[in-house]
């Protein structure tokens, strides 16, 4: 096994092994646990940086292992994988810091961080999966490793939410499995290759392939929270803030969206999908989800629930980008995979800060929060403006390319959907900012648990992550033309997709 074969495995184990050790750590070994967490997260970043550099140079990193003849676990670091791997690894590092501060002194921390590491391992696996079987393998692992995080608090309400979460995700997984096995039955093996591989089956299979596509998209659509499969997401808000951050910015919903990207581009192939007449319905579904999510968000008073519905809406930007045939739409969708991640995690970090520091859970309680917690609120504002796709934010870039893509694909309705969504985003974010910055605080905070210390408005470990990610949001927006920016990377991928199709 050469170094290049081993690297993907190392990326995986850099969170897997710490996870196993952490499970067996006694509760009080805080220092050891923290060290393991950060070491794992840091090491993963190092490996990934190395691979990014290599992939850009055209190196191939691939690990293959046959469970039984014909069923292979494949971890491959292609450009698309790197996009998602980098995002999840970077945000995992931030979230780990945040979680250490957040869970200060709460029970069952070893269990939490154990599953936390497993969850990231699964996410990285989903990202680097080199064929459909491996994708499903890690996709289900993700379900199993996130359930304990969702129900971590162990209250009756959490358990109920946990059951709903399981019902949705396991059912989705079952549907996905059917589609996957079916495709394996037809093709023998389903590797992820730019331009897709199912086109080799003649037109005789068109109907079967449409059905399979339906199964696959329905399967991953549950995690991607496509309407009407989104019901679990707002419920899952009972989870601790770092979990919401990770689940909704990175791990779960992204795994779903990423799955759709893989299926459309690297299993079916963009043009073949279009040829089967599947892209239009997918685009419509995405459009509906975008609007429905934004509309529901409008009426949520609970801050985290409002953010959750916003996620429902925003994740479908990615799906829309994928469904709009053409390189530009693709770029928009892929880059939003990253941008939505950093923006939404910022928002969840901040929501967590309000809750932890002042006990604020509702929008209606936010009056004057900006004066008490200026830095947090600043980060929150950046994230929110990004969601509204204001200039100089990451959101602007994605929105720009998506709208372009819609125009090129000749889907003006999509442009309207995006515009409407931006307006709705403004409608549900601006009031929050207004309350936080300009309204005066009427009565005492619901539950002020962390006092202000100098300029430090809350626990430093809680404050740093959102600030960093907020800076990232601005950077991604203003430096989008930089060769290492997500945008450039997305362009690289899009090229490969469509070049290979023309071939």
């Amino acid at each position, binding site marked *: 096994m050469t170094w290049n074969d081993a690297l993907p495995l190392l990326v995986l184990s850099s969170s897997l092994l710490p996870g196993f050790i952490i499970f067996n750590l006694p509760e009080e070994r805080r220092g050891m646990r923290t060290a393991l967490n950060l070491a794992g997260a840091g090491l993963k970043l190092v490996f990934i940086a190395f691979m990014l550099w290599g992939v850009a140079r055209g190196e191939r990193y691939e690990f293959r292992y046959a*469970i*039984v003849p014909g069923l292979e676990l494949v971890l491959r670091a292609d450009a698309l994988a790197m996009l998602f791997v980098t995002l999840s690894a970077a945000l995992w590092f931030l979230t780990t810091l945040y979680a250490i501060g957040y869970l200060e002194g709460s029970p069952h921390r070893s269990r939490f961080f154990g599953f936390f590491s497993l969850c990231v391992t699964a996410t990285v696996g989903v990202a680097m999966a080199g064929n459909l079987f491996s994708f499903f393998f890690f996709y289900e*692992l993700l379900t199993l490793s996130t359930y304990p995080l969702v129900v971590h608090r162990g209250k009756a309400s*959490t358990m109920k939410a946990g059951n709903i979460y399981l019902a949705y995700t396991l059912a989705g997984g079952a549907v996905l499995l059917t589609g996957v096995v079916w495709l394996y039955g037809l093709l023998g093996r389903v590797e992820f290759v730019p331009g897709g591989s199912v086109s080799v089956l003649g037109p005789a299979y068109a109907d079967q392939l449409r059905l399979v596509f339906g199964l696959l998209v329905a399967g991953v659509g549950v995690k991607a929270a496509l309407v009407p499969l989104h019901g679990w997401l707002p419920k899952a808000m009972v989870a601790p803030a770092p979990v919401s951050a990770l689940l909704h910015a990175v791990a779960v919903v992204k795994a779903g969206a990423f799955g759709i990207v893989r299926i459309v581009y690297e299993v079916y192939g963009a043009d073949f999908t279009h040829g089967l007449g599947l892209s239009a319905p997918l685009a419509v579904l995405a459009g509906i989800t975008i609007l429905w999510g934004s509309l529901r968000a409008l009426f949520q008073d609970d801050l985290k629930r409002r953010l959750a519905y916003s996620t429902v809406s925003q994740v479908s930007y990615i799906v829309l980008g994928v469904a709009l045939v053409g390189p530009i739409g693709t770029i928009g969708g892929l880059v939003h995979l990253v941008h939505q991640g950093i923006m939404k995690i910022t928002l969840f970090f901040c929501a967590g800060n309000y809750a932890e520091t002042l006990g604020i859970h509702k929008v209606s309680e936010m009056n004057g929060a900006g004066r008490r917690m200026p830095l947090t609120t600043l980060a929150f504002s950046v994230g929110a403006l990004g969601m509204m796709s204001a200039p100089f934010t990451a959101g602007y870039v994605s929105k720009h390319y998506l709208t372009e893509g819609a125009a090129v694909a000749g889907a003006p309705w999509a442009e309207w959907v995006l515009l409407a969504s931006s307006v709705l985003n403004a409608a549900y974010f601006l009031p929050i900012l207004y309350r936080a910055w300009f309204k005066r605080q009427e009565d005492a905070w619901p539950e002020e648990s962390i006092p202000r210390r100098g300029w430090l408005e809350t626990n430093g470990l809680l404050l740093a992550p959102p600030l960093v990610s907020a800076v990232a949001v601005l950077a991604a927006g203003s430096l989008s033309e930089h060769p290492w920016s997500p945008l450039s990377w997305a362009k690289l991928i899009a090229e490969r997709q469509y070049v290979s199709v023309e071939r």
Partner: protein
Amino acid sequence: MIEIELIPLIILVPLLWASLAFIAGPAHGWKLALGGSTLQLVLAWRLAAEVGGGADRVHVPGGWEAPLGIALSADGLAAVMLLLAQGVALPLAFYARAYFARHPEGAHTFWPLTGFLLAAMNALFLSADIFNLYVTLELVGLAAVGLVASGGAGSVAAALRYLLATLLGSGSYLLGVALLYGAYGTVTLPELASQVTEASPPVAMLAAGLMLAGMAVKTALFPFHFWLPPAHGGAPSPVSALLSALVIKASFYLAARLWLALFLPLATPSWGQVIGVLGAAAIFWGSFMALRQARLKMLIAYSTVAQVGYLFLFFPLATHTEPAAAQSALQGVTLQALAHGLAKAAMFAAAGAVILSTGHDRIMQLGGITAHMPVTVFTLAIAGVSLMGLPPSAGFLAKWLLIDSAIVSGQWWWIVVMIAGGLLTAAYVFKVLRHAFLRAEQSEVYKPLPRLVEWPGFLLAVASLALGLRAAELLNVLGTP
């Protein structure tokens, strides 16, 4: 080195240590058991290697060639089942030793009965003579009933109900044997196989029906499952583990073997469908009942009723379907048997640990169990994953192969059954697991346990997981039907 006869040894060794354990009594029986089952595992391993390496192995007791004598033969399926039996038995022997040290009820006959049970199952897996198979069936049945009966006053009724059911089953099988012998004048499987054809007299059809029905009763296939939950749920935990993991597999193995080796020419696809429908009914009814149980061991017992259903999906998937489909079906069902064997043994072992620690197994009162017995919780969780058929686990691989077989043979309805069954399984598995995350009620007292009570089960669970990551060699041993 000298060529040793593996086939007879793997039967004689347990017979020997069982009889010695009978003399020695419980105080020393466990030492014989540990030594014996270790040796058996080695023998089974070597046999599997030989079978995987090349042709099937045959042994002719007394040197009297069939049809006059009895032939013993080991093909891939037999070798794998032997491996499963010994592989489950050894960890359970350690577990039982630790369990009975804390909870002596049933200890005084456990070791000899277990020895004879293992001998009987090994003999059953290896026999190629339908009358000798009848004798081994009775051995398995009586040993199992004896083990259940050792559960004390509470399980006498369950044991008797089990005994009568299993006798009904073997009686029906015996009549089948009598008819076949009358019709063909031989009881040797290969000999019969060469003579049973589409053009066979109606007697053959009747015999097939009787023998399969008998096996269905012994395997507790719905609607003949009534005896299983009280027997498996009421016996001492090491016994429950042995019964659920191995004993029902023995009779299923015989059903599958007869089907493949003997009755396939007689069978029409509709036969397979009928059996499959019973299997589906078992999956749904068993899962449904499991969901309704308040006691952990009863839940696990009903889960066995459901999991047995998956095994019988083999018949529709392998009856006159494409070779590829039949192949996947055989591989899938074998993996399912192994996955369930390992996982179920692990679960019953864990349930026993819970009982030893808390003195009860009421699911509602397991709050905060994670804090006190994390190993046991992980055992239940990992075994649960395998039962649900989620990756990474042997259960997942099994389900994959079965679904593949259903797709290749164009029988999509079995996919629906398997998928729905998997979700129901998840429902009752998480009904237990959720308590691992609930806040602890202070009222519950957990007695600390020695390692040997918790770790063997954990080992079995991990095995059911690991098998899902490395099954190539196993399927190679299994070969093609």
